[in-house]
């Protein structure tokens, strides 16, 4: 590593921030938790965490004046990782408790699960697998270390629906429904599951993301 990585975790009022800080510290990487526009602009990468409703999340970003900053960073090609609600906010609109505008970094919407086979429970809570679409190439991505048996932790009632198939980077099956579990656009990733809460398997993804930032810096 040439110089110190600056990874900013966006603090917008919602989120299980401590878990995320610890996941990066596990690999010896310090993060900055911030709601400051300047700090975000100076970061090598940002993390959009998320435990909360779509509305609360967007409101949190708006009152801190961070919407435009994050959109600009997304255009700059810097790595961004959105987790759960953080991933959902990257799309154009959310349908939780009404219709709300998202960050629109990737075109698409966030909708409630449809009625599932055998009346499977919603929220979808538990450990599930992810798999690539035929045309997905995981080799040069943060998912390259994933095995089809690897399980990740999901807890959500709403799902990601990108407009273009190009942005669908991984799929998951639940209650007879196949839904998008990872969205991607260049160095921007959004995952529906919680890598910081998925044991060793999830930590691998964090590590791969750190490497992506490092490679971008070299």
């Amino acid at each position, binding site marked *: 590593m040439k110089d110190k990585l600056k990874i900013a975790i966006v603090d917008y*009022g*919602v*989120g*299980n*921030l*401590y*878990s995320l800080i*610890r*996941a990066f510290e*596990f690999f010896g990487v310090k993060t900055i938790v911030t709601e400051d526009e300047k700090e975000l602009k100076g970061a090598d990468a940002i993390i959009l965490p998320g*435990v*909360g*409703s779509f*509305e*609360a999340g967007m409101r949190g970003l708006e009152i801190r004046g961070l919407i435009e900053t994050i959109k600009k960073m997304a255009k700059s090609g810097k790595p961004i990782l959105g987790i759960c*609600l953080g991933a959902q906010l990257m799309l154009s609109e959310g349908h*939780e*408790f009404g219709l709300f505008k998202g960050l629109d970094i990737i075109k698409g919407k966030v909708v409630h699960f449809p009625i599932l086979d055998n*009346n*499977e*429970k*919603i*929220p979808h*809570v*538990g*450990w*599930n697998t992810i798999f690539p679409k035929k045309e997905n190439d995981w080799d040069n991505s943060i998912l390259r270390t994933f095995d089809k048996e690897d*399980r990740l*932790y999901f*807890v*959500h*009632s709403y799902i990601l629906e990108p407009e273009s198939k190009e942005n669908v980077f991984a799929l998951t099956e639940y*209650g007879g429904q196949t839904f998008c579990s990872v969205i991607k656009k260049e160095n921007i990733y959004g995952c529906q599951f*919680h890598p*910081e*809460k*998925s*044991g*060793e398997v*999830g*930590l691998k993804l964090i590590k791969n993301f750190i490497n992506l930032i490092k490679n971008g810096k070299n």
Partner: protein
Amino acid sequence: MKNIRIIPRLDIKGPNVVKPVQTEALRVVGNPQKMVQQYYKDGADELIYLDIVASLYRRNIDFNLLKSVTKNIFIPITVGGGIRSTHDINNVLRSGADKIAINTYAVKHPEFLSEIVREFGSQCIVLYVEAKKQPDGNYEVYTDGGRERSGLEVINWIKKAIDLGVGEILLTSVDQDGTRRGFDIELLKKISAFSPIPIIAHGGAGKPESLREAIMNAKIDALSISSIFHYNEYSIKKIKKYLNENKINIRTL
């Protein structure tokens, strides 16, 4: 078949893990940091961490203790005890929790549930129910760690809370808790018959067969277990191996 979660539960009093028997008669079991590390290593799918006196004494959870416990644990943690405001929830989420469990305050102020669901999302809010069977065969909701009667009937209360948007139910049988006599299948069946949201069963886990019964017969989504793990009667690995051999969809490491 859906994935069934095995969730060790820690009841916290002061700096210790304690184990209530039928939610009273507390015994000190051990050090939460050490126990949690072990459970994480052994393949626990989640953890439940309940400060069992916070609500009774109108105190907050010890956030520093919680942070020290969750520090190197990379699985989901549900935290409960004495939660009375969105501020409390934010503090808990900033100390390593991913979900919160709420009982006493919600029973007294049901409208609080819709408020926090709207803020944190359904997936973050676990309704904690302490159910005790009454002489007439119905189950009543208890609060303050199984000490106080609420006058609410369990089925009605759970239906109402689901309408208010909670995302999961942690259903404890006060009668079975700490007894290792098996789960209260009747209670679990009553709730799983109508619940569209996941149910975590607690109270009575004993022999591995009793866990299988709760999953197969009462159709619950997760098991919360304390005594048999705390006292090393069975390891998480052993339990998971047994369930796996019985064709139950379990995450193994």
